[in-house]
C-alpha cells in the first residue's frame, strides 16, 4: 500500500509541469543568468593602474622630487599610475572631460594640485598620493629646520631611515577560501528552490483533505490509514523535491563551477533538510480550506520570495544586514538559514555554525509538521 501510493505520487509529480518548471527549469535558467551577469563581480573594487594626466610645465620641472615620485609610480610591469604627459592644462582637461583619465595633476606654487571630474575610489587614492607627498616633504623640512644635526646624520648615512624597509602591517587570512561577492546569490537561489518544496506541500494536503480536491475525497474513503497516506505522499514529495534541488546543485557546482567548499555531501544534506522545511511550509500554507489552489501557490511563491529577499537573492549582503539589525528574524528565516549553511561550508573551516543552522531548520520543520498534524488528523466531514 505504502509503496503503491509512493510510486503513484512520484509519477504525478513528474507529470506536473508546474513543479518541474519552478523547481528544476527556473533555477537552472536563473543560475545560468547569474553566471553570465556576475562573472566579473568579484573583480569590482580591486586595485588597478590609475590613468592620470600630468601637466609637465615649468612649475612641474622645478618640483624635482615630485617628478621623481611620479616616475617611480609609473614604472614596472603593473605600475600604480598610467601617466599621460600633457604640455598644458587645457590638453589634460580634455582627457579628463572625455573620461580617459581619472585625474589631472598640475603643480602650482610648488604644490601638486589634483583636478577630478567626480568622486570615487581612484580619485581618493590619487589624492592620498598627493597628500602623502606634501606631508613627507613638509615633515622633513620642519624636522631639518628644528634639528639641523639630523640632516647631517641622514646625509652621512648615520641614520637607517632610508634603508629601513620595515613594514608595520601584515596580512592575515581567516579562511582558505577567497571571499566572493557572487557565491551567496547561488546559495540564496538554492534556498529558494528548497522552499519551492512548498508546491509539493500544497499538493500533499490537497490530496488528503476531502473538502479541498476530488483526489482528497477519494483518498479519504480509501482503506489506507491517514498516517500511511500522509507518510507515503510526504516521502514521495520529498524524493521529487530533493531530486530537483540536487540537479540544481550539481548544475551549479559542476557546470557553473561554483564552490561549496569541496563538501558536496554536506551541501546535499543541506538541500535535504531545506526541502523538508519547504515541504512542511507548503503543508502549513495549505491548511485553510477556504483558500483556492491558486491562492495557496501564490502564498508559497510570495513567502519564498520574501524569505529569499532577506537571504540575499536580489541584493547581496542584505542577509548580513538583517543578521546584525534583526538577529531574531534572521534566525527564523528558513531561506537565510539554508543560504548560511552553504556559506559556512564555503568559508568556514569547521562545522559548528553549519550544524547550528541545520538544527534550527529541523526545529522549524518539526514545528510546522506538528501544526499541520493537528489540522490533518482525525478530520471528518459532514458535507464537502
Amino acid at each position: 500500500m505504502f509503496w503503491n501510493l509512493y510510486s503513484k505520487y512520484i509519477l504525478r509529480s513528474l507529470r506536473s509541469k508546474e513543479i518541474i518548471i519552478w523547481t528544476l527549469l527556473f533555477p537552472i535558467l536563473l543560475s545560468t543568468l547569474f553566471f553570465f551577469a556576475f562573472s566579473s563581480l568579484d573583480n569590482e573594487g580591486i586595485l588597478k593602474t590609475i590613468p592620470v594626466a600630468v601637466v609637465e610645465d615649468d612649475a612641474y620641472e622645478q618640483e624635482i622630487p615630485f617628478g621623481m615620485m611620479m616616475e617611480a609610480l609609473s614604472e614596472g610591469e603593473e605600475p600604480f599610475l598610467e601617466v599621460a604627459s600633457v604640455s598644458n592644462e587645457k590638453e589634460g582637461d580634455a582627457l579628463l572631460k572625455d573620461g580617459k583619465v581619472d585625474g589631472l595633476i598640475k603643480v602650482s606654487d610648488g604644490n601638486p594640485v589634483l583636478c577630478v571630474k567626480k568622486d570615487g575610489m581612484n580619485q581618493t587614492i590619487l589624492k592620498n598620493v598627493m597628500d602623502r607627498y606634501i606631508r613627507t616633504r613638509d615633515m622633513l623640512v620642519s624636522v631639518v629646520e628644528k634639528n639641523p644635526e639630523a640632516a647631517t646624520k641622514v646625509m652621512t648615512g648615520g641614520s637607517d631611515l632610508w634603508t629601513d624597509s620595515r613594514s608595520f602591517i601584515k596580512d592575515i587570512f581567516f579562511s582558505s577560501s577567497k571571499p566572493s561577492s557572487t557565491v551567496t546569490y547561488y546559495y540564496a537561489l538554492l534556498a529558494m528552490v528548497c522552499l519551492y518544496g512548498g508546491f509539493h506541500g500544497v499538493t500533499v494536503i490537497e490530496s488528503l483533505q476531502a473538502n479541498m480536491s476530488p483526489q482528497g475525497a477519494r483518498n479519504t474513503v480509501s482503506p489506507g490509514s491517514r498516517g500511511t497516506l500522509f507518510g507515503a505522499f510526504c516521502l514521495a514529495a520529498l524524493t521529487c523535491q530533493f531530486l530537483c534541488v540536487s540537479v540544481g546543485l550539481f548544475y551549479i557546482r559542476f557546470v557553473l563551477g561554483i564552490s561549496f567548499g569541496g563538501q558536496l555531501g554536506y551541501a546535499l544534506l543541506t538541500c535535504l533538510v531545506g526541502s523538508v522545511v519547504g515541504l512542511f511550509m507548503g503543508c502549513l500554507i495549505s491548511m485553510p480550506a477556504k483558500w483556492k489552489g491558486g491562492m495557496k501557490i501564490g502564498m508559497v511563491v510570495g513567502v519564498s520570495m520574501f524569505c529569499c529577499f532577506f537571504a540575499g537573492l536580489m541584493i547581496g549582503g542584505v542577509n548580513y544586514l538583517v543578521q546584525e539589525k534583526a538577529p531574531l528574524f534572521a534566525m527564523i528565516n528558513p531561506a537565510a538559514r539554508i543560504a548560511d549553511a552553504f556559506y559556512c561550508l564555503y568559508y568556514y573551516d569547521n562545522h559548528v555554525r553549519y550544524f547550528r543552522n541545520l538544527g534550527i531548520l529541523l526545529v522549524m520543520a518539526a514545528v510546522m509538521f506538528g501544526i499541520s498534524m493537528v489540522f490533518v488528523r482525525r478530520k471528518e466531514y459532514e458535507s464537502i
Partner: protein
Amino acid sequence: MKVFSACLKIMKYHKSTFLTYLIIFTTMLLFVTKMVGETGTYTTFTKEKPEYAIINRDTDNTLTEGIMAVLEMQGTPVELEDSKEAMMDAGFYEAAEGIFIIPEGFTESFWKGEDKEIEIWKRPSSASGYYLESAVEEFLSSVCMYRELGSNMSEEQMTEAALSSMSKECETQMRQYMSGSVVSGKIRIYLRFLPYILLLTCISCVGIVFMAFQRPEIRMRNLCSPSNPSHIALQKFLYVCVIGVADWILLNIVGTLFCLKEWRSLDFRFILLLFGNSFVMAVVAISVALLCSSFMRGQNAQSFVPNIVSLGMCFLSGVFVPQELLSDKILHVSKFIPVYWYARNVDKICDLTGFTAEQLHDIYVGIGIQLGFAAALFCIYLAVNKFREREAQDFGSAKTEIEM
C-alpha cells in the same frame, strides 16, 4: 471597438495579478534606488571613506589612539566584536573593507623597534583595503621618522606631531563641464532598472489577454464574425500600445515623484533624452510582449515566460549589473538584445558633458537601434502569426485557465 473593450474586460478580470506584479516590483525598484543610488551633486570633491573595523588587543595609549584617529580620518568605523566569526562575516559581506587587529604588546614592541606587526584582513587586491592600510603605514612611518630625526621629542609628542602632519592635504579642484546639475545616482539606478518592470508587466498583461483569444471556440467565433480580421488585429494592437504607454507613464510618474528633487535641478535636455530613451524602451517592450504572446500556451507559461524573458534580457544587458562589469564575451552577445542599447544609452546620457551633435551621436544611434529591434520583433510576430493561422492543428493546442 468590441475587441478592445474585451481586452480591457479580460485585464480587469485579472487585475489582482497585474496589480500584485506592479506593486511588488515597483516597491522593490524604489527600495533598490534608495539603497544603491547616491545623491552626490559633484560640486565639491568628497573623499571615499571605506568601512573598516579595528580590534585593539593592546592597551589604550597615544600610539593606538593615533592609529584609530588616522583611520577615522580616512574611513568609516564599524563596530565589531573581537571574535573570528564576527570578523569573517563582516569581511565576507563587505561590511568592513579592512579589519585591523592591534596585537597585545604592539606599542611596547614598536617603541623598542621590534618586529611585532599590526594584522590586517582585507580582500585580495582591494583598493579600499590598500588605501586604509597605506594610511596606517604612513602614520607609523611618520612616527618613526620623528623618532629618528627629532631627538628631543617624547613618544607622545612624536605621535601628536605625526598625527597633525596627517591633516595636511593637497588642493583638489572639482571640474564641472555642465552648467546645471549632473544626473544623480538615484535617477540613473531607477532608469537602469526600469526595463525589467516594463518588460515583465507588458508581457504579463499582453500574454494573459491574448491567450484568451487563442481559445479555439473564441477564435472560431471571431473568424466567422462580421468583423474584418484586420480590424480585430488593429484593436488588439491598440490595446497593447495603450498598455505599454500607460505602463511607461505610470512608472515614470512614480520615479519622478520618488526623485523629484533630483529631476527638478536637472537640465531639461537631460530630461528629454532620458524620457525619450525610456519611451523607446516601452516601444521595445510592446514588441517583445507581442512576440512572447505568440508562444504562450497554458497557465504555466503565463508566469514562466514573462519572468524568464525579462530576467534574461536584463541580466545579460547590464541592467542588474553595470555593463562595465560584464565580460567582453557577454557584451558581444548583449549587443543583439535591445535592452543593452537602452542601458548603454542611460549611462551615456548620465555621463554627458555637453550637448553637441558629436556628443549626442552615440545616443541617437542607440535609440535608432532600439527602434530597429522593435520593428524587427514586430515583423517576426506578424510572420509567426501568419504561419500559425495556416496550421489547422493550432486550433486545438491552446489551453486556458477555464479548461484547467
